[in-house]
């Protein structure tokens, strides 16, 4: 009897610890959101979102060029990473036991652990130094490397959710392997694949080091992919570390915009994943 009571008490204790740990994670997120919202909300407005940065002491100004720069570089990164990574995931799904698959999985996991600063340095050395200028193109390429492991690993998981019974049904109907991939596996997993891409985009949007080392920043509107380009994380970094109060306020505003965008992406991804799971 006492033994049972002891077990019950221990069970309660561990449950309480788990709840505590989970709450700490939530509290930290809530605090960050609260501070960013409180400090940033007064700054954000139409002019803020659509104007070029103003010099110190000049009223107004905004983050328009950084917003466009971020959108462009993240979009460029996704444009490069998505086809390559989905194709890689299809290979992993079709050849789960091959040696190359094991190596690709290993390499992908290692890549996902490489600090983004190192990825930035790699593109800096290979592209920026060679071409002689910082550019949106280099930024996009760096972000595509950041996204690659997230997209590949999540896409493989999602493809594997398509049951073998359906694949066999497709083959038994006279579909070739390729037809089965394009007509059944990819469309069947489409929802999950999109969620993986959204999460990768959200991750890339907040990366500072890779874009700082490859696209640098700019005070002007974007004119070509070959020139230095502003982005939200780099702008926040510069403004927040500056000694000027109005720049610091703009850093909060930019942080609010960025955090909101990332939060919206994540929540949408989670919701749509939940929906698609329920349909299964």
């Amino acid at each position, binding site marked *: 009897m006492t033994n049972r009571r002891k077990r019950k008490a221990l069970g309660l204790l561990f449950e309480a610890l788990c709840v505590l740990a989970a709450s700490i994670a939530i509290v930290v997120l809530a605090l960050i959101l609260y501070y960013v919202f409180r400090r940033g909300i007064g700054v954000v407005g139409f002019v803020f979102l659509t104007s070029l940065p103003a010099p110190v002491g000049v009223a107004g100004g905004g983050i328009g060029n950084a917003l466009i720069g971020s959108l462009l570089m993240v979009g460029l990164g996704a444009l490069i990473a998505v086809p390559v990574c989905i194709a890689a995931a299809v290979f992993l799904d079709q050849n789960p*036991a091959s040696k190359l698959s094991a190596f690709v999985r290993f390499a992908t996991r290692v890549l996902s652990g490489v600090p983004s600063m190192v990825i930035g340095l790699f593109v800096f050395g290979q592209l920026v130094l060679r071409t002689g200028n910082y550019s949106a193109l280099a930024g996009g390429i760096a972000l595509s490397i950041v996204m690659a492991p997230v997209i590949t690993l999540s896409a493989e998981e999602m493809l594997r959710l398509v049951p073998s019974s*359906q694949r066999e049904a497709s083959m038994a109907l006279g579909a070739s392997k390729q037809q089965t991939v394009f007509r059944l596996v990819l469309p069947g997993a*489409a929802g999950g694949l999109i969620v993986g891409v959204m999460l990768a985009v959200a991750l890339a949007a907040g990366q500072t080091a890779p874009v700082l080392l490859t696209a640098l920043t700019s005070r002007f509107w974007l004119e070509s992919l070959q020139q230095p380009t502003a982005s939200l994380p780099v702008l926040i970094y510069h403004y927040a570390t500056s000694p000027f109060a109005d720049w610091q306020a703009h850093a909060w505003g930019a942080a609010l915009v960025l955090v909101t965008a990332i939060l919206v992406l994540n929540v949408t991804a989670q919701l749509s994943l939940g929906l698609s799971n329920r349909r299964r």
Partner: protein
Amino acid sequence: MAQGVNIENFSFWYGQSQVVKNISLSAPVRQVTALIGPSGCGKTTLLRSINRLHELHPGTRAAGRIAIGEEDIFSAAVDPVDLRRRVGMIFQKPSPFPHLSVFENVAAGLRLHGLAQGKEIAERVEACLRKAALWEEVKDDLGRKGALLSGGQQQRLCIARALAVEPEVFLMDEPCASLDPVGIMRIEELIRELKHDYTVIIVTHNMHQASRISDQTAFVLNGELVEVGRTKEFFLAPTDPRTEAYLTWKIG
């Protein structure tokens, strides 16, 4: 055009273990042949060899001959992908394509093989759904996802999907295993209809089902064919003592 199936001295291995041992069996055209036997006896493997679906798994090996009509399915001239179009298969677990509607599930094979265009597709889909005795239940909402139908309806949808590509042979791997009695009854009625136009080979664990729907029954045990005969005689007067033991629940 329906074709009979002739299996001669057929063996099959997974790696080192031989799961089908030198089986010879012929499934006459436009008749139902039932394969019975305990789980793991090799009857499903035999069935899945007839459309060469088992080749897809690494480490398998086959020996012997299987002919559909006069044609050896293992000959170099036969493309396994084309063979599978000519051999319809229904699985134990109903497997409609979940991202496709009822209509598109049936149309899938037509589109895949370019068998019909435009308006013809809709006509063929309707004909196949009618043949599979599903039309009346789904005609008002053909756009509904196939996966939202009941288990029995899904299985009939799979039959309609297989019918659409006009196979010569129907393979059924325990098609009623996951269905309720009403669903089972419907599928059995359907099989009796199908045999007027097709050769059917069905794996079943249910001996009553075998006796109800088949013309010929074959008993497989440990990879060997123990006995095959006309269904009536097979169940009334089995010649092999192992068959009799199985039929009276003494083994398996």
